[in-house]
């Protein structure tokens, strides 16, 4: 295994970590208005991710920076090709980030409603656009021999990519629902359980189609492998597990489904990093976009030393905030 291969894996891991973690806070953002019938309920939902979302979002920052550092050609082509889509993603990420911090800074109903709306819209849009972007990598975009994007905005939206975007939205919603079922109490928890059961069949169907489509697209036949089938089953299992009151396991199941779904893109891509629809010779690959071995060696050391530390203290944060939130917690705030 070469250094660029290691970094391809690292980037896949970073994107996976991002969707596992930020995935549930996307879901909570989408659903907080549904699980919370009144302001206190909505506040409970939002409070469940209050201390966590910012740390989760850093996974995206690091994933993007790692692409820049390890595969400048990939980062350059992908980000300039997806330009307007990324503007949309950034707007979505900005408004929802602000809404988490600012929503509770005023009790006026209109203030709360406005931020709630922005939170919902931002939390749906962000995973959708990022999903479309990841889908584009595998579907392929018109990329010329100079590695530059040669298409228009409409070329970013083939049916496959749109479907990937949709799948990630549904999956994030499910992941958020199991998280809410795990972290809240009373009526909010009950509604989260019901939502999980309602979303799960659709999510399972979406994941199954998405996996199959990805296989076909990359010329690997029709059949999902064992892990992929397990991911679909995990989605279905989540519905059953929440009903049995095993929310922890349900959340584990949606985590597994999320991880597998992100990795489907990367495993089908390799050794390519971005497919060109203008001939395989124009594909961006691990080899033709990577940085030099010195830079990759330095960064490997940094990653190997620091990522475990990061996971350790982020894990500890989750441990500190492991308790379910009650209505009393929220009104005390």
């Amino acid at each position, binding site marked *: 295994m070469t250094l660029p291969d290691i970094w391809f894996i690292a980037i896949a891991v970073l994107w996976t970590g991002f969707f596992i973690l930020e995935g549930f806070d996307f879901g909570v953002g989408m659903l907080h208005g549904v699980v919370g019938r009144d302001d206190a309920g909505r506040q409970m939902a939002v409070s469940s991710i209050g201390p966590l979302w910012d740390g989760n*979002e850093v996974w995206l920052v690091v994933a993007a920076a790692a692409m820049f550092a390890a595969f400048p050609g990939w980062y*350059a082509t992908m980000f300039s090709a997806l330009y307007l889509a990324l503007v949309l993603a950034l707007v979505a*990420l900005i408004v929802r980030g602000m809404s988490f911090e600012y929503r509770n800074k005023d009790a006026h109903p209109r203030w709360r409603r406005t931020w709630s709306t922005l939170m919902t819209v931002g939390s749906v849009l962000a995973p959708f656009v990022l999903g479309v972007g990841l889908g584009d990598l595998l579907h392929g975009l018109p990329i010329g021999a100079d590695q530059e994007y040669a298409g228009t905005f409409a070329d970013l939206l083939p049916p496959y990519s749109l479907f990937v975007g949709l799948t990630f939205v549904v999956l994030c919603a499910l992941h958020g629902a199991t998280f809410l079922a795990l972290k809240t109490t009373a009526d909010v928890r009950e509604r989260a359980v019901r939502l999980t059961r309602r979303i799960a069949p659709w999510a399972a169907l979406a994941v199954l189609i998405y996996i199959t489509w990805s296989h076909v697209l990359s010329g690997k036949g029709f059949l999902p492998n064992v892990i992929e089938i397990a991911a679909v089953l995990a989605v279905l299992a989540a519905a059953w597990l929440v009903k049995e009151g095993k929310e922890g396991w349900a959340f584990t199941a949606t985590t597994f489904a999320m991880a597998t779904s992100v990795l489907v893109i990367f495993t089908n891509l390799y050794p390519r990093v971005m497919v060109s629809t203008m001939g395989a010779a124009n594909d961006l690959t691990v080899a033709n976009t990577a940085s030099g071995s010195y830079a990759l060696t330095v960064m490997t050391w940094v990653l190997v030393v620091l990522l475990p530390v990061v996971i350790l203290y982020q894990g500890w944060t989750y441990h*500190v905030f492991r308790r379910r939130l009650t209505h009393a917690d929220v009104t005390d*705030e």
Partner: protein
Amino acid sequence: MSNVDLARIQFAMTSIYHFIFVPITIGLAFLTAILQTVWHRTGRDEYLRLTKFFGVLLVINVAVGVVTGLVQEFQFGMDWSAYSRLVGDVFGAPLAMEGLAAFFLESTFLGLWIFGWGRLSRRIHLAAIWLVALGAAGSAAFILAANSWMQHPVGFEINATTGRPQLNDIWAVMTNPVFLWGYTHVLLASLVTGCVLMLAVSAWHLRKRSNPEVFARSAKLALVILAPAMIFQMFIGSELGVVEAKYQPMKIAASEAQWTTCQPCSFSIFQIGGGNQDQTPTKIIEVPYLLSLLATNHLDGQVTGLNELNAQYQQQYGPGNYVPNVFIQYWSMRVMAYLAMVIVLLGLWGLWVMRRKHLETAHRFLGLAMWAPVLLVLMNTAGWMLTENGRQPWIVQGIMLTENGISPSVSTTTVAISLTVFFLLYAALTVVWLVLMLRYARKAPPPTVPAAEDTTVPEPTFAR
């Protein structure tokens, strides 16, 4: 306007905006950590109340800083893909390290700190705010290392087959003299910004006689740090000028509108003309020897003029105009330096008032101090204009021209759309941020409550 112009405006706009919040965040994080440490050591209620009070202001700022930082990171690839492709091998490494080593730390521990009141032991909770401050300062370090590489590229070789710079010495990148001086400069600017904000908010309360027993303490803390930090800052800034004069002589010559070579060189306090076309400005007041001293550390040092430098560059890099925008350069230098002096005077005035023990009743001083944060925003912005405009026309000094760094696949319309979107969004953010800052800065500091019930927001503002 070309897509290069628009992309430059967008990058300048979003960077300047982002850097309103960065120094506030770094400065306030350290000051809040100090307040909490004093509370931890002395157990005095006033410091706990101040910790929570300024903690809320910190959070309101971090929110904007974090979300606008994401735009900066994405923009390299979106607008400057040719640049990213060329230099990612070197430039990307410090960015990736920033995330792993610093940003994770800041974000994770900020969440822990905000929601950790009553959930963490007092000692660990105190450690959390220090880690937030360290993370914020660490983030700035890696970003500055990357930026300094654009000013003075070191630690790389050009790959013979690809023609691209390749990292070959990370240590050189992290000990780049431009970085070491520039980072110290930014850290001190952040500390000063935090102090001025704390002073301004405290001044407002003292004038209104709201909780003077609490805000006199924060005003004093800010004042004790402010003047010494700002004076030290001016020495660092001047030393940074000498370092930059060595590697980017254009930057310094342009900041004095010095078209011809001089020795010794005077510094004009104010002049009329001397911009991009006019090479014989009318200097109103001149300080002899000062430019020589600032640029070289010697009273009779030689400063090469813009014309001669341009001729040298043309010989070295081919035909073209290598002189940055002289007007911007000349005035950003002065706005920065003069405002710095105003801040020093304000700080010394405050110390003097404090020594005479009538800080709480010094209405004229407090009235002026209230407005000082505006000066800080202007000063910090001018500082960045000076260093970034002075790098032009290069995106990486001597390696790539800005106009060549643009994304070839991105049309002018696309950049125009995105510029409009970000302009409108940032304008809206500014309104919301200002409303919240003004409101929370005017609140009374939260009363202390039993530790167990003690949560994020200082007052039960949204109890139903």
